[in-house]
């Protein structure tokens, strides 16, 4: 039961946090030049977007859940199962960031889900 809760925290809350980061970075603008100074300026600008703080909080929660889960579960099991976040991520990308997901990408996501199912069944 604890394991299930931790997986949900990592996959759903973690992905939601990443989506918030994605939104924040889209509001911040693009990395114009590929230089450390430009990258630091961009990240500094990003810190003023509210979405970044929501995202960071959610990702921190997911991170502590991951730490707990790793204390009693194998890394080679935990990491593949968290791949389910592709599905959550694509759905979030559509509904939250207004991205389009192509047919081919859906196919890839389906494969990923099938792989996760195999990993879970192999236990």
């Amino acid at each position, binding site marked *: 039961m604890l394991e299930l809760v931790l997986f949900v925290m990592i996959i759903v809350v973690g992905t939601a946090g990443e989506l918030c980061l994605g939104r924040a970075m889209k509001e911040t603008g693009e990395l114009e030049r590929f230089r450390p100074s430009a990258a630091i300026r961009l990240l500094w600008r990003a810190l003023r977007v509210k979405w970044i703080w929501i995202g960071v909080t959610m990702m921190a929660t997911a991170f502590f859940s991951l730490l707990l889960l790793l204390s009693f579960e194998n890394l080679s099991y935990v990491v593949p199962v968290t791949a389910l976040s592709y599905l959550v991520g694509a759905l979030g990308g559509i509904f939250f960031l207004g991205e389009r997901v192509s047919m081919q990408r859906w196919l890839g996501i389906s494969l990923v889900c099938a*792989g996760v199912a195999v990993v879970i069944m192999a236990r």
Partner: protein
Amino acid sequence: MHTRLHLKTYVLIAVMVIAGPIGNLLIAKGMRQAGEVRLWPASELLALFLRVFGAFTIWIGIACLIGFIVAYMLALSMADYSYVQPAAALGYGVTALLAAFVLGESVSPLRWVGIGIICLGVLFIRNTHPRTTETRE
């Protein structure tokens, strides 16, 4: 223009694929060194917290994951989330390899098959255009 966009994105993704799995490996190692995990009473939780974050391993792991996240955010600023996330997730396969060969976890053949299917799915996703929305001014 598009070639440059792809190139920058690929460099950042390469950083993610290397730093992410090493970070995962180190925090898994750190948690295993921390001993038995009890979340209650609160004093136990505090003791666990101090044990975990008092060790060097976990901090190197966290540094790797921060490198991963910075590369991730920069990549997200120029490509779609649903493009970057799967591409970066190639690192998930690398993590499994590190778990087996460095941590010595026993990975059953069927689990390898599952991980292989996941990576295949990732490769499928990678061949799509990186951005479908415009950057806001």
